[in-house]
């Protein structure tokens, strides 16, 4: 019988009381990678719970009654798209969501994570992800965002959280994936970024580090390795003729070995590195990284590399959104049938007057 983890949690997650949509996403995505069906009743309960996390002013909060925040908004929308039912899609108030995105947009193109909150490149990714999936993306909304994200690419070739800081896997993924959504990934120095990310794979451990000269961590199996499918596609679009047709440009076998041999808790769940305790975040991102390492290509060209038994095979994941590609397609199809919401801020008459 399918696990019912979603329903109860230990007291160890008090610190995640402002991240409950994340728990929904980490768990649902892990289950979809493991090809475990979500019982309809559970799916419906998740929809209703996330509806309770939706703010009356738009966007989703870390829990009922809290303020909206881009991170749980990203997680909630992804979780609802994984469920993929009409009920799930209908939870999202698209008009209000657009209002929320405008409310956190900054004049320099960046976004704060929540009203009165901090800026970093995660916010651009969260905003671009939900806006594109739910078809509320207007060019005006992301005006100057491209340039702001580009200013996060530093001397190391990777991207930092805000301009000036050290290149970091999580932020690099967010910035790059956001640019892919905006169709602007070619404006990065792709070669420098490629050199940086491939250099983050540890030659002994096989897994990835988040930053140069730091330790390996299972979660970077997704944030870092997940960049390679994005770069592969970007380089291909730029006319690169020498790309492999079978492999990503990282050591797929070594990453699978690291995850399977070093990142599993014998009683279930995955983790950062041996000696650390399991948690839903690492379970989600280790599995996501394992999926990336197992599957090369896209719909037209697909090459699998499964380390160990056949049933180690996970479902493929979409490298931009990190939910299964079928769910992405289905959500896009659903929301693109709906009209993009009235966005008075995005329209000017010819005189430039609103």
């Amino acid at each position, binding site marked *: 019988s399918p696990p019912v983890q*979603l*329903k*109860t*949690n230990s007291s*160890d997650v008090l*610190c995640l*009381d*402002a*991240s409950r949509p994340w728990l*929904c996403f980490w768990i649902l995505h892990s289950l979809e990678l493991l090809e475990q069906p979500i019982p309809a009743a559970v799916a419906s309960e*998740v929809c*209703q*719970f996330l*509806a309770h996390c939706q703010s009356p002013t738009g966007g989703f909060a*870390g829990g*009922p*009654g*809290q*303020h909206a*925040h881009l991170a749980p908004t990203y997680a909630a929308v992804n979780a609802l798209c994984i469920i993929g039912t009409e009920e799930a899609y209908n939870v999202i108030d698209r008009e209000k969501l657009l209002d929320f995105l405008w409310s956190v947009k900054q004049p320099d193109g960046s976004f704060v*994570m*929540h*009203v*009165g*909150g*901090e800026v*970093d490149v995660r916010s651009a990714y969260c905003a671009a992800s939900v806006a594109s999936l739910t078809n509320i993306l207007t060019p005006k909304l992301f005006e100057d965002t491209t340039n702001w994200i580009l200013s996060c690419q*530093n*001397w190391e070739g990777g991207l930092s*959280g805000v301009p000036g*800081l050290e290149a970091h896997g*999580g*932020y690099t993924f967010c910035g790059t994936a956001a640019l892919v959504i905006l169709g602007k990934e070619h404006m990065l120095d792709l070669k420098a970024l*490629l050199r940086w990310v491939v250099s983050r794979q*540890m*030659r002994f451990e*096989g897994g990835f580090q988040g*930053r*140069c*000269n730091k330790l390996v*961590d299972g*979660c970077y199996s997704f*944030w870092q390795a997940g960049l390679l499918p994005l770069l592969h596609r970007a380089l291909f679009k730029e006319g690169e003729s*020498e790309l*492999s*047709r*079978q*492999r*990503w440009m990282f*050591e797929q076998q070594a990453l699978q070995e690291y995850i399977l041999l070093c990142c599993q808790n014998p009683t279930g769940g995955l983790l*950062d590195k041996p000696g650390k*305790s399991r*948690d839903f*975040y690492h379970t989600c991102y280790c599995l996501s990284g394992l999926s990336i390492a197992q599957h090369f290509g896209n719909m037209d060209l697909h*090459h*699998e*590399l499964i*380390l*160990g038994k*056949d049933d180690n095979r996970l479902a493929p994941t979409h490298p931009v959104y990190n939910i299964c590609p079928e769910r992405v397609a289905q959500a896009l199809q659903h929301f693109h049938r709906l009209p993009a919401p009235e966005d008075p801020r995005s329209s000017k008459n010819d005189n430039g007057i609103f």
Partner: protein
Amino acid sequence: MSGVEETLNETVEVKEDNEFDGEVEDHPVDDYMADPTRYVFYRDRKDWADLEPVPQDDGPSPVVKIAYSEKFSDVYDYFRALLKNDERSERAFALTADAIELNAANYTVWHYRRVLLQALAKDLREEMRYITAIIEEQPKNYQVWHHRRMVVEWLNDPSEELEFIADILSQDAKNYHAWQHRQWVIQEYKLWESELEFVENLLEEDVRNNSAWNQRHFVISHTTGFSDAGVLDREIQYCLNQIRKAPHNESAWNYLKGMLQDRGLSTQPGLLEKVLELKETHCSPYLLAFLFDCYEDSLESSSQKENIDEEEQKISLKKALEICELLAQDKDTIRKEYWLFLGRSLKAKYGGGDGGTDALSEDPEASVPTSEPQELN
């Protein structure tokens, strides 16, 4: 770890006054005035009796339910009540501290606390002391650093910041939030003066501290810049010295390249020779990659010149391809796919008539894409 994962993955070290929970019923509730160290639930406090607590509305069938302690539920039930009424009072302010202690990642509580700080015209110096203590306890939390930044902005006083951040960095020299705050302070208040010295000290302690190398780049690019020949020479010398001391330190090599890549690695006179010297005694995959980059850059720049020296190009190409092969097959095999790609790319771009070496082609590919799983045992 710090960064994206922090907000999602803070392991719980929540302090609970568990030892008091059993005793609460035994004592009259007024006693908490007499003995303020004994914890009393808000629901039992007379001075809160006017407020109706608001239970969390998870809906009829909640998922990802958290097993809140009694204390947690009590505090947050009252927090929700305050929020609902938008109450701006001393008691509300005091409660936010309890709520923060229970979950310092609750950004709604922090926001409310800031509203109260302003509405009640609270003593911001005292708030600085408070936030200093909280950050010392939980230095890998986004909200605490953002809060500190707001208070510093309101006070318009950065005078404690560099020392405070230095203290946090002394406990974790790579704390991303700390560096972010430090860069903000320095840039906002123009406190560049002693930062290069600070960076050098950190690099003395740990030459592999990539955050410190990044800060070095940050300071120089915002002050003298890298265009000044004197600065460039000094920095190159500094790098090479650090490399001699620790040849397998990727940060130093990355910095060397990062500094020079915009103007072209091959434009630095004498550098290639120095690196070739180092190759004998201080070789590393990073040195070899740097050599590759030098050769690639010379191919790039010579191909743009009016009179292309074909012989020279051929030699550079050959050397570059040899390094790719060496790295892919022997010195940096974890990046084999990447080095093979670079080799193919370079050959395609500059290979010209020459057949080139076969060794760089990857394993035979199917001309028709295959979707058969390949098992690795």
